[in-house]
């Protein structure tokens, strides 16, 4: 059986398709990076920033699709083969929604009922000196008591 499988002609466009997918992946990455640079100047809680993040996630999923479908050749496999891979991964839709919702709800609960938590996240900390290479050992020593202070 192995012999017949080995000589199975696979679908797909060969080198031409590989070049095309490479170009698509590069373009998507460049667009992602451009969005990332654009996002830097935006205020933290703005709707636009959230929208850009959403766009980046969509581009990420598009990249994932091209890698799996063409580079990993899944698109040219039999349909039931595709299904046995893709259907279980649909669990991620639930995972993502449920867990992120849970995290968000936990934050809201703590902000409402835990004044200590709320207070901790509003205290501004002095920005430390930028790490110079000579002072790195010193910095490590510094980092620990600093951490303690914020916990108390």
């Amino acid at each position, binding site marked *: 059986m192995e012999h017949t499988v080995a000589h199975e002609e696979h679908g797909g466009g060969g080198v031409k398709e590989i070049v095309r997918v490479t170009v698509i992946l590069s373009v998507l*990455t460049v667009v992602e*990076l451009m*969005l990332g640079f654009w996002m*830097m100047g935006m205020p933290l809680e703005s709707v636009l920033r959230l929208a850009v993040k959403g766009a980046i996630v969509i581009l990420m999923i598009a990249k994932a699709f091209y890698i799996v479908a063409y580079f990993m050749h899944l698109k040219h496999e*039999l349909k039931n083969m595709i299904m046995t891979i893709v259907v279980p991964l649909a669990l991620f839709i639930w995972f993502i929604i449920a867990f992120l919702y849970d995290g968000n709800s936990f934050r809201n609960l703590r902000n409402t009922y835990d004044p200590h938590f709320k207070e901790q996240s509003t205290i*501004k900390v002095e920005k*430390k000196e930028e790490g110079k290479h000579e002072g790195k050992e010193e910095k490590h020593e510094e980092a*620990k008591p600093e951490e303690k202070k914020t916990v108390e």
Partner: protein
Amino acid sequence: MSTATATPSKLWGGGKSPFNVEYGKLMMWYFLMSDAFTFGAFLISYGTIRFSTNGWPDPNEVFRSYPFAPEGAHAPLVFVSIMTFILIISSVTMVLAVHAGHNMDKRKVVINLILTILGGLAFLSCQAWEWNHLHSEGAWWGRNPFLNHDGTASSTNFTNYFFTITGFHGFHVFSGVVINIIMLIMTLMDKFEKRGHYLMIEKAGLYWHFVDLVWVFVFTCFYLI
């Protein structure tokens, strides 16, 4: 049982390969699926913690340096985009190796495998530099020198997740490089020529693309968003 194969049925009745792929390749797919759940669990856990925290460090402040950068360089996204492109290109050379394997072109398989291995090593070197750089700034598991976006103190969750997830991914890249080196040696020893097919290269290729795929998610979750 012979009647089962004779009567046409909606269910698979045996007699031919249901997915029309080789056993090892199918098992590689299932392994990758389980690995996807492992990485997914890591990333979703990271997302949950991030959603349950009020502040989070700005990735553009944390990842803003590159090798041989002058003091206080501020170049967010630059180094990591180089890493991303290295991995994409190494993925392309891997497809080309698989494609050459289909055509029984040993010379091209060898060339493209070598390029893929070099790409993997380049990526690992970049990651080693970045870890070393962050460590010299005081970041490590359980240690976070970076402040939140709004200037408030940050928890160690940020560094813990960063080092755990990029470390786990880096470990995958490392094992991918080892697998590719083994494939290269086997190709040079004419193992696949004797077998009459290069299916092993295809399986190694699947693993390597998966590593690239995971990086797409890690890159987005840690550096962009």
